[in-house]
Protein backbone atom coordinates (compact mmCIF):
# COMPACT_ATOMS: atom_id res chain seq x y z
CA UNK A 1 0.00 0.00 0.00
CA UNK A 2 1.34 3.40 -0.88
CA UNK A 3 2.00 5.78 2.01
CA UNK A 4 -0.82 8.03 0.81
CA UNK A 5 -3.37 5.23 0.99
CA UNK A 6 -2.02 4.06 4.32
CA UNK A 7 -2.39 7.53 5.79
CA UNK A 8 -5.93 7.98 4.54
CA UNK A 9 -7.13 4.45 5.04
CA UNK A 10 -9.30 5.38 8.06
CA UNK A 11 -11.77 7.50 6.16
CA UNK A 12 -11.41 5.81 2.79
CA UNK A 13 -12.51 2.41 4.08
CA UNK A 14 -15.35 3.93 6.07
CA UNK A 15 -16.52 5.81 2.95
CA UNK A 16 -16.38 2.69 0.81
CA UNK A 17 -18.44 0.74 3.34
CA UNK A 18 -21.29 3.28 3.26
CA UNK A 19 -22.78 2.28 -0.13
CA UNK A 20 -22.47 -1.36 0.94
CA UNK A 21 -24.51 -0.70 4.09
CA UNK A 22 -27.13 1.16 2.09
CA UNK A 23 -27.29 -1.70 -0.41
CA UNK A 24 -27.77 -4.28 2.34
CA UNK A 25 -30.49 -2.14 3.80
CA UNK A 26 -32.31 -1.57 0.53
CA UNK A 27 -32.36 -5.33 -0.04
CA UNK A 28 -33.66 -5.95 3.47
CA UNK A 29 -36.40 -3.35 2.95
CA UNK A 30 -37.36 -5.07 -0.29
CA UNK A 31 -37.80 -8.47 1.33
CA UNK A 32 -39.35 -7.08 4.51
CA UNK A 33 -42.18 -5.49 2.57
CA UNK A 34 -42.78 -8.77 0.75
CA UNK A 35 -43.00 -10.75 3.99
CA UNK A 36 -46.45 -9.34 4.60
CA UNK A 37 -49.09 -12.05 4.84
CA UNK A 38 -52.01 -12.17 2.43
CA UNK A 39 -52.11 -11.08 -1.17
CA UNK A 40 -51.69 -7.31 -1.41
CA UNK A 41 -52.66 -7.35 -5.08
CA UNK A 42 -56.12 -8.70 -4.19
CA UNK A 43 -56.60 -5.76 -1.85
CA UNK A 44 -56.16 -3.36 -4.76
CA UNK A 45 -58.09 -5.21 -7.44
CA UNK A 46 -61.68 -4.06 -7.63
CA UNK A 47 -63.30 -7.46 -7.22
CA UNK A 48 -66.86 -6.24 -6.65
CA UNK A 49 -67.98 -6.81 -10.27
CA UNK A 50 -65.76 -9.84 -10.79
CA UNK A 51 -62.32 -9.53 -12.34
CA UNK A 52 -60.31 -11.20 -15.09
CA UNK A 53 -56.74 -12.52 -14.82
CA UNK A 54 -55.75 -9.54 -16.96
CA UNK A 55 -57.08 -7.13 -14.33
CA UNK A 56 -55.07 -8.96 -11.71
CA UNK A 57 -51.93 -8.92 -13.83
CA UNK A 58 -52.31 -5.20 -14.47
CA UNK A 59 -52.71 -4.44 -10.78
CA UNK A 60 -49.69 -6.60 -9.96
CA UNK A 61 -47.69 -4.84 -12.67
CA UNK A 62 -48.66 -1.46 -11.24
CA UNK A 63 -47.53 -2.48 -7.75
CA UNK A 64 -44.27 -3.90 -9.04
CA UNK A 65 -45.41 -7.35 -7.94
CA UNK A 66 -45.48 -9.17 -11.26
CA UNK A 67 -43.08 -12.00 -12.05
CA UNK A 68 -41.05 -14.09 -9.62
CA UNK A 69 -39.57 -12.46 -6.53
CA UNK A 70 -36.07 -12.54 -8.09
CA UNK A 71 -37.31 -10.78 -11.22
CA UNK A 72 -38.85 -8.16 -8.96
CA UNK A 73 -35.61 -7.90 -7.05
CA UNK A 74 -33.68 -7.39 -10.28
CA UNK A 75 -36.08 -4.68 -11.44
CA UNK A 76 -35.98 -3.00 -8.02
CA UNK A 77 -32.19 -2.81 -8.12
CA UNK A 78 -31.82 -1.70 -11.73
CA UNK A 79 -34.24 1.14 -11.00
CA UNK A 80 -32.67 2.00 -7.65
CA UNK A 81 -29.23 2.81 -9.07
CA UNK A 82 -30.83 5.60 -11.07
CA UNK A 83 -32.69 6.86 -7.95
CA UNK A 84 -35.96 5.57 -9.37
CA UNK A 85 -38.04 4.21 -6.50
CA UNK A 86 -41.01 3.36 -8.70
CA UNK A 87 -44.38 5.02 -9.03
CA UNK A 88 -46.93 4.86 -6.25
CA UNK A 89 -50.06 3.05 -7.45
CA UNK A 90 -52.12 5.08 -4.96
CA UNK A 91 -51.10 8.64 -5.82
CA UNK A 92 -49.76 7.95 -9.31
CA UNK A 93 -46.66 10.03 -8.62
CA UNK A 94 -43.02 8.87 -8.45
CA UNK A 95 -42.19 7.77 -4.91
CA UNK A 96 -38.90 9.67 -5.00
CA UNK A 97 -40.85 12.93 -5.51
CA UNK A 98 -43.41 12.00 -2.85
CA UNK A 99 -40.73 11.36 -0.26
CA UNK A 100 -38.52 14.28 -1.25
CA UNK A 101 -41.37 16.77 -1.11
CA UNK A 102 -41.93 15.87 2.55
CA UNK A 103 -38.49 14.94 3.85
CA UNK A 104 -36.93 18.46 3.96
CA UNK A 105 -39.54 19.87 6.34
CA UNK A 106 -39.01 16.93 8.71
CA UNK A 107 -35.23 17.30 8.47
CA UNK A 108 -35.57 21.01 9.21
CA UNK A 109 -37.60 20.41 12.37
CA UNK A 110 -35.30 17.62 13.61
CA UNK A 111 -32.13 19.55 12.81
CA UNK A 112 -33.33 22.68 14.60
CA UNK A 113 -34.37 20.58 17.60
CA UNK A 114 -31.03 18.78 17.77
CA UNK A 115 -29.13 22.04 17.27
CA UNK A 116 -30.98 23.41 20.30
CA UNK A 117 -30.08 20.26 22.25
CA UNK A 118 -26.41 20.57 21.35
CA UNK A 119 -26.33 24.22 22.43
CA UNK A 120 -28.10 23.45 25.70
CA UNK A 121 -25.81 20.48 26.41
CA UNK A 122 -22.72 22.64 25.73
CA UNK A 123 -24.02 25.38 28.03
CA UNK A 124 -24.62 22.81 30.76
CA UNK A 125 -21.12 21.42 30.19
CA UNK A 126 -19.64 24.90 30.50
CA UNK A 127 -21.54 25.48 33.76
CA UNK A 128 -20.34 22.12 35.09
CA UNK A 129 -16.73 22.87 34.19
CA UNK A 130 -16.67 26.40 35.57
CA UNK A 131 -18.39 25.97 38.94
CA UNK A 132 -17.60 23.74 41.88
CA UNK A 133 -20.87 23.89 43.77
CA UNK A 134 -21.75 20.24 44.43
CA UNK A 135 -25.47 20.95 44.75
CA UNK A 136 -25.58 22.48 41.28
CA UNK A 137 -23.72 19.47 39.91
CA UNK A 138 -26.27 17.13 41.48
CA UNK A 139 -29.12 19.09 39.90
CA UNK A 140 -27.44 19.01 36.48
CA UNK A 141 -26.75 15.29 36.74
CA UNK A 142 -30.39 14.79 37.75
CA UNK A 143 -31.48 16.46 34.51
CA UNK A 144 -29.48 13.82 32.63
CA UNK A 145 -31.44 11.11 34.41
CA UNK A 146 -34.59 12.26 32.60
CA UNK A 147 -33.15 10.68 29.44
CA UNK A 148 -35.83 8.61 27.77
CA UNK A 149 -38.14 9.05 30.76
CA UNK A 150 -40.40 11.71 29.30
CA UNK A 151 -42.76 11.20 26.36
CA UNK A 152 -42.32 14.25 24.13
CA UNK A 153 -45.87 14.40 22.83
CA UNK A 154 -47.36 14.29 26.33
CA UNK A 155 -45.19 17.28 27.26
CA UNK A 156 -46.23 19.00 24.04
CA UNK A 157 -49.87 18.52 25.00
CA UNK A 158 -49.27 19.96 28.47
CA UNK A 159 -47.61 22.90 26.68
CA UNK A 160 -50.56 23.29 24.31
CA UNK A 161 -53.07 23.29 27.14
CA UNK A 162 -51.04 25.83 29.08
CA UNK A 163 -49.92 28.20 26.30
CA UNK A 164 -52.73 27.84 23.77
CA UNK A 165 -55.85 27.15 25.82
CA UNK A 166 -55.11 28.90 29.12
CA UNK A 167 -52.65 31.72 28.34
CA UNK A 168 -53.47 32.05 24.62
CA UNK A 169 -49.98 33.25 23.71
CA UNK A 170 -49.25 30.87 20.81
CA UNK A 171 -51.15 30.46 17.52
CA UNK A 172 -53.44 27.48 16.92
CA UNK A 173 -51.51 24.25 16.17
CA UNK A 174 -52.92 23.93 12.67
CA UNK A 175 -49.84 24.00 10.46
CA UNK A 176 -46.63 25.92 9.88
CA UNK A 177 -48.28 29.17 8.82
CA UNK A 178 -51.66 30.81 8.89
CA UNK A 179 -53.98 28.85 6.55
CA UNK A 180 -54.35 31.99 4.38
CA UNK A 181 -50.60 32.28 3.82
CA UNK A 182 -48.83 30.29 1.15
CA UNK A 183 -45.42 28.74 1.75
CA UNK A 184 -42.68 29.65 -0.73
CA UNK A 185 -40.98 26.60 -2.23
CA UNK A 186 -37.39 26.84 -3.39
CA UNK A 187 -35.51 23.84 -2.03
CA UNK A 188 -38.18 22.38 0.23
CA UNK A 189 -37.06 23.54 3.69
CA UNK A 190 -39.97 25.80 4.77
CA UNK A 191 -38.10 28.16 7.09
CA UNK A 192 -35.00 28.40 4.90
CA UNK A 193 -37.10 28.99 1.78
CA UNK A 194 -38.97 31.88 3.40
CA UNK A 195 -35.67 33.45 4.40
CA UNK A 196 -34.25 32.98 0.88
CA UNK A 197 -37.29 34.54 -0.77
CA UNK A 198 -37.35 37.35 1.80
CA UNK A 199 -40.90 36.62 2.95
CA UNK A 200 -40.39 37.93 6.46
CA UNK A 201 -44.09 37.73 7.34
CA UNK A 202 -43.96 33.98 6.64
CA UNK A 203 -40.73 33.64 8.60
CA UNK A 204 -42.41 35.30 11.57
CA UNK A 205 -45.44 33.03 11.30
CA UNK A 206 -43.28 29.89 11.13
CA UNK A 207 -41.10 30.96 14.04
CA UNK A 208 -44.17 31.64 16.19
CA UNK A 209 -45.45 28.14 15.44
CA UNK A 210 -42.05 26.49 15.91
CA UNK A 211 -41.43 27.87 19.41
CA UNK A 212 -43.45 25.33 21.37
CA UNK A 213 -42.63 22.14 19.41
CA UNK A 214 -38.95 23.03 19.31
CA UNK A 215 -38.73 23.85 23.01
CA UNK A 216 -40.43 20.55 23.78
CA UNK A 217 -37.99 18.65 21.55
CA UNK A 218 -35.01 20.41 23.10
CA UNK A 219 -36.16 19.99 26.71
CA UNK A 220 -37.17 16.34 26.30
CA UNK A 221 -34.29 15.11 24.17
CA UNK A 222 -31.34 17.04 25.62
CA UNK A 223 -31.03 14.74 28.68
CA UNK A 224 -29.98 11.77 26.50
CA UNK A 225 -27.21 13.88 25.02
CA UNK A 226 -26.28 15.59 28.27
CA UNK A 227 -26.06 12.30 30.13
CA UNK A 228 -23.39 10.99 27.77
CA UNK A 229 -21.55 14.29 27.81
CA UNK A 230 -21.58 14.61 31.60
CA UNK A 231 -20.30 11.04 32.01
CA UNK A 232 -17.52 11.87 29.57
CA UNK A 233 -16.75 15.09 31.40
CA UNK A 234 -16.55 13.44 34.79
CA UNK A 235 -14.10 10.92 33.33
CA UNK A 236 -11.93 13.47 31.60
CA UNK A 237 -12.03 16.54 33.80
CA UNK A 238 -9.22 15.38 36.07
CA UNK A 239 -7.51 13.00 33.63
CA UNK A 240 -3.72 13.30 33.13
CA UNK A 241 -4.03 15.13 29.77
CA UNK A 242 -6.11 17.84 31.47
CA UNK A 243 -3.65 18.15 34.34
CA UNK A 244 -0.82 18.40 31.84
CA UNK A 245 -2.67 21.11 29.98
CA UNK A 246 -3.26 23.09 33.17
CA UNK A 247 0.31 22.62 34.40
CA UNK A 248 1.73 23.84 31.12
CA UNK A 249 -0.10 27.12 31.58
CA UNK A 250 -2.69 26.83 28.82
CA UNK A 251 -5.55 29.32 28.81
CA UNK A 252 -8.80 28.37 30.45
CA UNK A 253 -10.58 28.21 27.09
CA UNK A 254 -7.97 25.87 25.67
CA UNK A 255 -8.29 23.58 28.69
CA UNK A 256 -12.08 23.50 28.31
CA UNK A 257 -11.83 22.70 24.61
CA UNK A 258 -9.38 19.92 25.30
CA UNK A 259 -11.64 18.37 27.96
CA UNK A 260 -14.69 18.65 25.69
CA UNK A 261 -12.86 17.12 22.78
CA UNK A 262 -11.92 14.06 24.81
CA UNK A 263 -15.32 13.81 26.51
CA UNK A 264 -17.67 14.12 23.57
CA UNK A 265 -17.17 10.87 21.63
CA UNK A 266 -20.14 9.02 23.12
CA UNK A 267 -22.39 12.06 22.89
CA UNK A 268 -21.60 12.43 19.18
CA UNK A 269 -22.70 8.82 18.72
CA UNK A 270 -25.79 9.60 20.76
CA UNK A 271 -26.51 12.61 18.57
CA UNK A 272 -26.46 10.40 15.48
CA UNK A 273 -28.76 7.87 17.12
CA UNK A 274 -31.12 10.66 18.19
CA UNK A 275 -31.28 11.98 14.64
CA UNK A 276 -32.21 8.51 13.39
CA UNK A 277 -34.84 8.07 16.07
CA UNK A 278 -36.33 11.52 15.55
CA UNK A 279 -36.63 11.32 11.74
CA UNK A 280 -39.32 8.74 12.41
CA UNK A 281 -40.28 9.74 15.95
CA UNK A 282 -40.99 13.39 15.30
CA UNK A 283 -44.07 12.35 13.31
CA UNK A 284 -46.05 12.45 16.56
CA UNK A 285 -45.10 16.09 17.15
CA UNK A 286 -45.77 16.90 13.48
CA UNK A 287 -49.24 15.39 13.72
CA UNK A 288 -49.95 17.23 16.94
CA UNK A 289 -49.06 20.61 15.45
CA UNK A 290 -50.47 19.86 12.00
CA UNK A 291 -47.09 20.15 10.26
CA UNK A 292 -47.21 17.07 8.07
CA UNK A 293 -43.95 15.40 7.14
CA UNK A 294 -42.32 12.25 5.86
CA UNK A 295 -43.69 10.13 8.72
CA UNK A 296 -47.23 10.90 7.60
CA UNK A 297 -46.35 9.52 4.16
CA UNK A 298 -45.24 6.23 5.73
CA UNK A 299 -48.43 5.92 7.75
CA UNK A 300 -50.60 6.67 4.71
CA UNK A 301 -48.66 4.13 2.64
CA UNK A 302 -49.22 1.46 5.27
CA UNK A 303 -52.91 2.29 5.60
CA UNK A 304 -53.46 2.13 1.85
CA UNK A 305 -51.20 -0.90 1.29
CA UNK A 306 -48.94 1.14 -0.98
CA UNK A 307 -45.94 -1.18 -1.08
CA UNK A 308 -43.95 0.76 -3.59
CA UNK A 309 -44.31 3.88 -1.46
CA UNK A 310 -43.46 2.09 1.78
CA UNK A 311 -40.42 0.38 0.31
CA UNK A 312 -39.17 3.66 -1.17
CA UNK A 313 -39.69 5.46 2.11
CA UNK A 314 -37.75 2.81 4.04
CA UNK A 315 -34.85 2.95 1.59
CA UNK A 316 -34.60 6.75 1.69
CA UNK A 317 -34.88 7.07 5.46
CA UNK A 318 -32.43 4.24 6.11
CA UNK A 319 -29.96 5.73 3.64
CA UNK A 320 -30.28 9.09 5.39
CA UNK A 321 -29.67 7.52 8.81
CA UNK A 322 -26.70 5.52 7.53
CA UNK A 323 -25.29 8.73 6.07
CA UNK A 324 -25.62 10.41 9.47
CA UNK A 325 -23.95 7.44 11.20
CA UNK A 326 -21.17 7.75 8.65
CA UNK A 327 -20.70 11.43 9.51
CA UNK A 328 -20.74 10.53 13.21
CA UNK A 329 -17.92 8.04 12.71
CA UNK A 330 -15.91 10.53 10.65
CA UNK A 331 -16.37 13.31 13.22
CA UNK A 332 -15.28 10.99 16.01
CA UNK A 333 -12.24 9.84 14.06
CA UNK A 334 -11.30 13.45 13.31
CA UNK A 335 -11.76 14.54 16.93
CA UNK A 336 -9.88 11.60 18.37
CA UNK A 337 -7.32 9.92 16.10
CA UNK A 338 -7.15 6.98 18.53
CA UNK A 339 -10.55 5.90 17.23
CA UNK A 340 -9.24 5.37 13.72
CA UNK A 341 -8.97 1.69 12.80
CA UNK A 342 -5.50 0.22 12.92
CA UNK A 343 -4.18 2.82 15.35
CA UNK A 344 -2.41 1.27 18.31
CA UNK A 345 -2.76 3.02 21.64
CA UNK A 346 -0.55 2.33 24.64
CA UNK A 347 -2.15 1.84 28.02
Amino acid at each position, binding site marked *: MTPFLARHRWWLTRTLVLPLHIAVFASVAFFLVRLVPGDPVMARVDASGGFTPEDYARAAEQMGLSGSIWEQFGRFWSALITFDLGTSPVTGRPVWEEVMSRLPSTIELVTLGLLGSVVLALVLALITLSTRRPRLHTVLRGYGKLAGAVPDFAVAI*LGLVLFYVVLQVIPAPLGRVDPRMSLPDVIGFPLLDSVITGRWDVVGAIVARYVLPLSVLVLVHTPSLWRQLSLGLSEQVAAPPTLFKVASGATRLSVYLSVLRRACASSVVMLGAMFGGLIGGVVVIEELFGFGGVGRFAITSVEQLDFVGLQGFLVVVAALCLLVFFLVDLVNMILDPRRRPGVRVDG
Partner: protein
Amino acid sequence: MTEALVAVPPSVTATTPRRGASAWRTWLPAGPFAVFVLLTIVARWVVPFDPETVVAPANLAPGGAHAFGTDSTGMDVFSRTIAATRVNLVMAVLVTLMATVTGLVLGLVLGMNEAAGGVRGLVGRGMTRFTDLTDAVPPLIVGVVVVGLFGPSLVSLSVALALILMPNQVRLTRAEVLKVRGDAYVDAARMAGLLPWQVMVRHVLPNSARPAIENSSNVFGVSIIVSASLGFLGVGLNPPTPEWGVMISSGISDVMLGGWWTTLFPAIALCAAVSSAALLAGVITRLTRSPGH
Protein backbone atom coordinates in the same frame (compact mmCIF):
# COMPACT_ATOMS: atom_id res chain seq x y z
CA MET B 1 -20.67 1.24 11.52
CA THR B 2 -20.81 3.16 14.73
CA GLU B 3 -19.08 1.17 17.40
CA ALA B 4 -20.84 0.86 20.72
CA LEU B 5 -18.96 3.60 22.46
CA VAL B 6 -21.85 4.92 24.46
CA ALA B 7 -20.42 5.69 27.87
CA VAL B 8 -21.04 3.31 30.73
CA PRO B 9 -22.10 5.05 33.93
CA PRO B 10 -19.31 5.05 36.50
CA SER B 11 -19.93 2.50 39.20
CA VAL B 12 -22.31 3.63 41.90
CA THR B 13 -20.65 5.16 44.93
CA ALA B 14 -19.60 2.89 47.70
CA THR B 15 -22.26 4.19 50.07
CA THR B 16 -24.59 1.21 49.75
CA PRO B 17 -27.56 1.75 52.04
CA ARG B 18 -27.29 -0.02 55.34
CA ARG B 19 -29.64 -2.90 56.00
CA GLY B 20 -32.58 -2.39 58.36
CA ALA B 21 -33.27 1.22 59.26
CA SER B 22 -32.52 2.72 55.85
CA ALA B 23 -33.72 -0.15 53.69
CA TRP B 24 -36.90 1.76 52.99
CA ARG B 25 -34.83 4.41 51.28
CA THR B 26 -33.74 1.81 48.75
CA TRP B 27 -37.27 0.69 48.10
CA LEU B 28 -39.03 4.06 48.24
CA PRO B 29 -38.38 4.98 44.58
CA ALA B 30 -40.09 1.73 43.57
CA GLY B 31 -43.30 2.96 45.23
CA PRO B 32 -44.93 4.72 42.26
CA PHE B 33 -44.22 1.73 40.06
CA ALA B 34 -45.80 -0.59 42.64
CA VAL B 35 -48.90 1.62 42.63
CA PHE B 36 -49.16 1.27 38.86
CA VAL B 37 -48.77 -2.50 39.05
CA LEU B 38 -51.47 -2.62 41.70
CA LEU B 39 -53.75 -0.51 39.50
CA THR B 40 -53.11 -2.85 36.59
CA ILE B 41 -54.35 -5.77 38.62
CA VAL B 42 -57.37 -4.18 40.27
CA ALA B 43 -58.25 -1.53 37.64
CA ARG B 44 -61.38 -3.25 36.39
CA TRP B 45 -62.89 -3.50 39.86
CA VAL B 46 -62.06 -0.11 41.33
CA VAL B 47 -63.18 2.17 38.50
CA PRO B 48 -66.55 3.82 39.22
CA PHE B 49 -67.90 3.41 35.66
CA ASP B 50 -67.53 0.93 32.82
CA PRO B 51 -64.60 2.32 30.78
CA GLU B 52 -65.98 1.12 27.44
CA THR B 53 -69.59 2.29 27.49
CA VAL B 54 -71.33 5.65 27.37
CA VAL B 55 -72.35 6.51 30.92
CA ALA B 56 -73.16 10.23 30.92
CA PRO B 57 -73.77 13.22 28.65
CA ALA B 58 -70.80 14.10 26.46
CA ASN B 59 -68.16 16.71 27.34
CA LEU B 60 -68.98 17.17 31.02
CA ALA B 61 -66.35 19.28 32.76
CA PRO B 62 -64.48 17.64 35.66
CA GLY B 63 -66.36 17.62 38.95
CA GLY B 64 -69.18 15.81 40.69
CA ALA B 65 -69.56 12.13 39.89
CA HIS B 66 -67.06 12.38 37.04
CA ALA B 67 -63.82 13.54 38.65
CA PHE B 68 -62.02 13.88 35.30
CA GLY B 69 -65.15 14.76 33.27
CA THR B 70 -66.47 12.84 30.27
CA ASP B 71 -65.19 12.67 26.71
CA SER B 72 -66.91 13.59 23.45
CA THR B 73 -68.87 10.34 23.40
CA GLY B 74 -69.85 10.48 27.06
CA MET B 75 -67.45 7.91 28.50
CA ASP B 76 -65.97 8.58 31.94
CA VAL B 77 -62.41 9.89 31.56
CA PHE B 78 -61.34 8.86 35.08
CA SER B 79 -62.43 5.24 34.57
CA ARG B 80 -60.79 5.10 31.16
CA THR B 81 -57.51 6.60 32.36
CA ILE B 82 -57.29 4.07 35.19
CA ALA B 83 -58.43 1.13 33.04
CA ALA B 84 -55.83 2.01 30.42
CA THR B 85 -53.04 1.11 32.86
CA ARG B 86 -53.99 -2.47 32.15
CA VAL B 87 -53.54 -2.27 28.38
CA ASN B 88 -50.45 -0.08 28.46
CA LEU B 89 -48.65 -1.79 31.32
CA VAL B 90 -49.39 -5.39 30.35
CA MET B 91 -48.06 -4.60 26.90
CA ALA B 92 -44.96 -2.96 28.36
CA VAL B 93 -44.31 -5.98 30.60
CA LEU B 94 -44.69 -8.38 27.66
CA VAL B 95 -42.38 -6.27 25.53
CA THR B 96 -39.75 -5.94 28.25
CA LEU B 97 -39.74 -9.69 28.90
CA MET B 98 -39.52 -10.62 25.23
CA ALA B 99 -36.90 -8.02 24.36
CA THR B 100 -34.73 -8.82 27.39
CA VAL B 101 -34.90 -12.61 27.10
CA THR B 102 -34.22 -12.75 23.37
CA GLY B 103 -31.64 -9.99 23.78
CA LEU B 104 -29.82 -12.01 26.46
CA VAL B 105 -29.88 -15.21 24.40
CA LEU B 106 -28.80 -13.57 21.15
CA GLY B 107 -26.16 -11.44 22.85
CA LEU B 108 -24.77 -14.52 24.59
CA VAL B 109 -24.64 -16.58 21.40
CA LEU B 110 -23.18 -13.75 19.34
CA GLY B 111 -20.59 -12.83 21.95
CA MET B 112 -19.42 -16.42 22.39
CA ASN B 113 -19.20 -17.20 18.68
CA GLU B 114 -17.81 -13.99 17.29
CA ALA B 115 -14.16 -14.88 17.68
CA ALA B 116 -14.64 -18.42 16.38
CA GLY B 117 -13.09 -19.29 13.06
CA GLY B 118 -14.87 -20.48 9.96
CA VAL B 119 -18.55 -20.18 9.20
CA ARG B 120 -19.59 -19.87 12.86
CA GLY B 121 -17.51 -16.75 13.45
CA LEU B 122 -18.49 -15.28 10.12
CA VAL B 123 -22.20 -15.67 10.90
CA GLY B 124 -21.64 -14.26 14.40
CA ARG B 125 -19.81 -11.19 13.13
CA GLY B 126 -22.34 -10.71 10.35
CA MET B 127 -25.22 -10.81 12.83
CA THR B 128 -23.48 -8.27 15.05
CA ARG B 129 -23.04 -5.92 12.10
CA PHE B 130 -26.69 -6.46 11.28
CA THR B 131 -27.91 -5.55 14.77
CA ASP B 132 -25.92 -2.33 14.38
CA LEU B 133 -27.62 -1.68 11.06
CA THR B 134 -31.09 -2.04 12.55
CA ASP B 135 -30.47 1.31 14.24
CA ALA B 136 -30.95 2.93 10.84
CA VAL B 137 -34.69 2.32 10.88
CA PRO B 138 -36.56 4.67 13.21
CA PRO B 139 -38.27 2.55 15.92
CA LEU B 140 -41.63 4.22 15.60
CA ILE B 141 -41.69 3.54 11.86
CA VAL B 142 -41.05 -0.17 12.40
CA GLY B 143 -43.99 -0.14 14.80
CA VAL B 144 -46.22 1.61 12.30
CA VAL B 145 -45.24 -0.80 9.53
CA VAL B 146 -45.62 -4.00 11.55
CA VAL B 147 -48.89 -3.01 13.18
CA GLY B 148 -50.30 -1.54 9.99
CA LEU B 149 -49.61 -4.69 8.04
CA PHE B 150 -50.19 -7.43 10.59
CA GLY B 151 -53.18 -5.78 12.24
CA PRO B 152 -53.53 -4.03 15.58
CA SER B 153 -53.63 -6.65 18.31
CA LEU B 154 -51.91 -6.83 21.67
CA VAL B 155 -49.68 -9.61 20.33
CA SER B 156 -48.56 -7.96 17.09
CA LEU B 157 -48.03 -4.69 18.90
CA SER B 158 -45.92 -6.37 21.59
CA VAL B 159 -43.87 -8.37 19.09
CA ALA B 160 -43.26 -5.25 17.02
CA LEU B 161 -42.06 -3.28 20.04
CA ALA B 162 -39.94 -6.17 21.29
CA LEU B 163 -38.26 -6.39 17.88
CA ILE B 164 -37.56 -2.67 17.95
CA LEU B 165 -36.07 -2.62 21.43
CA MET B 166 -34.18 -5.92 21.28
CA PRO B 167 -31.02 -4.84 19.38
CA ASN B 168 -29.98 -2.58 22.23
CA GLN B 169 -30.25 -5.46 24.71
CA VAL B 170 -28.27 -7.68 22.35
CA ARG B 171 -25.54 -5.07 22.11
CA LEU B 172 -25.31 -4.57 25.88
CA THR B 173 -25.14 -8.32 26.58
CA ARG B 174 -22.67 -8.96 23.78
CA ALA B 175 -20.27 -6.29 25.05
CA GLU B 176 -20.41 -7.79 28.54
CA VAL B 177 -19.96 -11.35 27.23
CA LEU B 178 -16.85 -10.27 25.35
CA LYS B 179 -15.46 -8.93 28.64
CA VAL B 180 -16.43 -11.97 30.71
CA ARG B 181 -15.49 -14.79 28.33
CA GLY B 182 -11.79 -14.32 28.95
CA ASP B 183 -12.08 -14.45 32.74
CA ALA B 184 -10.26 -17.14 34.66
CA TYR B 185 -13.37 -18.83 36.07
CA VAL B 186 -14.72 -19.40 32.56
CA ASP B 187 -11.45 -21.09 31.58
CA ALA B 188 -11.57 -23.07 34.82
CA ALA B 189 -15.11 -24.27 34.09
CA ARG B 190 -14.09 -25.27 30.60
CA MET B 191 -11.06 -27.16 31.85
CA ALA B 192 -13.17 -28.88 34.49
CA GLY B 193 -14.89 -30.56 31.56
CA LEU B 194 -18.16 -28.64 31.25
CA LEU B 195 -19.73 -28.65 27.81
CA PRO B 196 -19.67 -25.33 25.92
CA TRP B 197 -23.39 -24.72 26.49
CA GLN B 198 -23.00 -25.48 30.18
CA VAL B 199 -20.21 -22.92 30.42
CA MET B 200 -22.39 -20.44 28.59
CA VAL B 201 -25.51 -20.92 30.70
CA ARG B 202 -23.96 -21.58 34.11
CA HIS B 203 -21.01 -19.20 34.09
CA VAL B 204 -21.10 -16.61 31.32
CA LEU B 205 -24.82 -15.76 31.37
CA PRO B 206 -25.16 -14.92 35.09
CA ASN B 207 -22.07 -12.73 34.91
CA SER B 208 -23.02 -10.84 31.78
CA ALA B 209 -26.75 -10.31 32.25
CA ARG B 210 -26.49 -7.21 34.45
CA PRO B 211 -26.38 -4.42 31.82
CA ALA B 212 -29.37 -5.79 29.95
CA ILE B 213 -31.35 -6.28 33.15
CA GLU B 214 -30.55 -2.76 34.31
CA ASN B 215 -31.59 -1.46 30.92
CA SER B 216 -34.87 -3.36 31.05
CA SER B 217 -36.60 -0.60 33.01
CA ASN B 218 -35.55 1.75 30.25
CA VAL B 219 -37.05 -0.66 27.72
CA PHE B 220 -40.20 -0.64 29.81
CA GLY B 221 -40.47 3.14 29.71
CA VAL B 222 -39.72 3.36 26.02
CA SER B 223 -42.27 0.68 25.19
CA ILE B 224 -44.97 2.63 27.03
CA ILE B 225 -44.01 5.75 25.09
CA VAL B 226 -43.91 4.01 21.71
CA SER B 227 -47.16 2.11 22.31
CA ALA B 228 -48.90 5.33 23.27
CA SER B 229 -47.37 7.06 20.23
CA LEU B 230 -48.71 4.31 17.96
CA GLY B 231 -52.12 4.72 19.54
CA PHE B 232 -51.86 8.46 19.05
CA LEU B 233 -51.06 7.98 15.35
CA GLY B 234 -54.11 5.78 14.94
CA VAL B 235 -52.31 2.48 14.34
CA GLY B 236 -52.68 1.15 17.88
CA LEU B 237 -55.53 -0.81 19.41
CA ASN B 238 -59.00 -0.02 18.18
CA PRO B 239 -61.20 2.33 20.19
CA PRO B 240 -63.09 2.11 22.51
CA THR B 241 -60.35 0.02 24.15
CA PRO B 242 -59.00 2.35 26.84
CA GLU B 243 -55.43 3.22 25.90
CA TRP B 244 -53.64 6.47 26.71
CA GLY B 245 -52.38 7.24 23.20
CA VAL B 246 -55.81 6.76 21.62
CA MET B 247 -57.46 8.81 24.38
CA ILE B 248 -54.99 11.64 23.83
CA SER B 249 -55.42 11.72 20.06
CA SER B 250 -59.20 11.53 20.19
CA GLY B 251 -59.23 14.35 22.72
CA ILE B 252 -57.00 16.69 20.73
CA SER B 253 -59.85 18.23 18.78
CA ASP B 254 -61.60 18.95 22.10
CA VAL B 255 -58.56 20.86 23.33
CA MET B 256 -59.04 23.39 20.54
CA LEU B 257 -62.57 23.93 21.79
CA GLY B 258 -61.50 24.28 25.40
CA GLY B 259 -62.19 20.69 26.50
CA TRP B 260 -58.71 20.13 27.93
CA TRP B 261 -59.60 17.32 30.36
CA THR B 262 -60.06 14.45 27.89
CA THR B 263 -56.45 14.86 26.78
CA LEU B 264 -54.66 16.23 29.81
CA PHE B 265 -55.40 13.40 32.25
CA PRO B 266 -54.23 10.53 30.05
CA ALA B 267 -51.15 12.60 29.16
CA ILE B 268 -50.35 13.07 32.86
CA ALA B 269 -50.94 9.36 33.52
CA LEU B 270 -48.58 8.52 30.68
CA CYS B 271 -45.86 10.78 32.04
CA ALA B 272 -46.34 9.37 35.53
CA ALA B 273 -46.10 5.76 34.36
CA VAL B 274 -42.95 6.38 32.36
CA SER B 275 -41.27 8.28 35.18
CA SER B 276 -42.20 5.54 37.64
CA ALA B 277 -40.27 3.11 35.44
CA ALA B 278 -37.33 5.52 35.42
CA LEU B 279 -37.39 5.66 39.22
CA LEU B 280 -37.42 1.86 39.30
CA ALA B 281 -34.23 1.87 37.25
CA GLY B 282 -32.36 3.41 40.18
CA VAL B 283 -33.64 0.69 42.51
CA ILE B 284 -32.64 -2.11 40.15
CA THR B 285 -29.17 -0.63 39.66
CA ARG B 286 -28.64 -0.38 43.39
CA LEU B 287 -29.86 -3.94 43.98
CA THR B 288 -27.73 -5.52 41.25
CA ARG B 289 -24.62 -3.67 42.38
CA SER B 290 -24.92 -4.09 46.13
CA PRO B 291 -22.35 -6.45 47.67
CA GLY B 292 -23.33 -10.08 47.78
CA HIS B 293 -24.87 -10.02 44.31
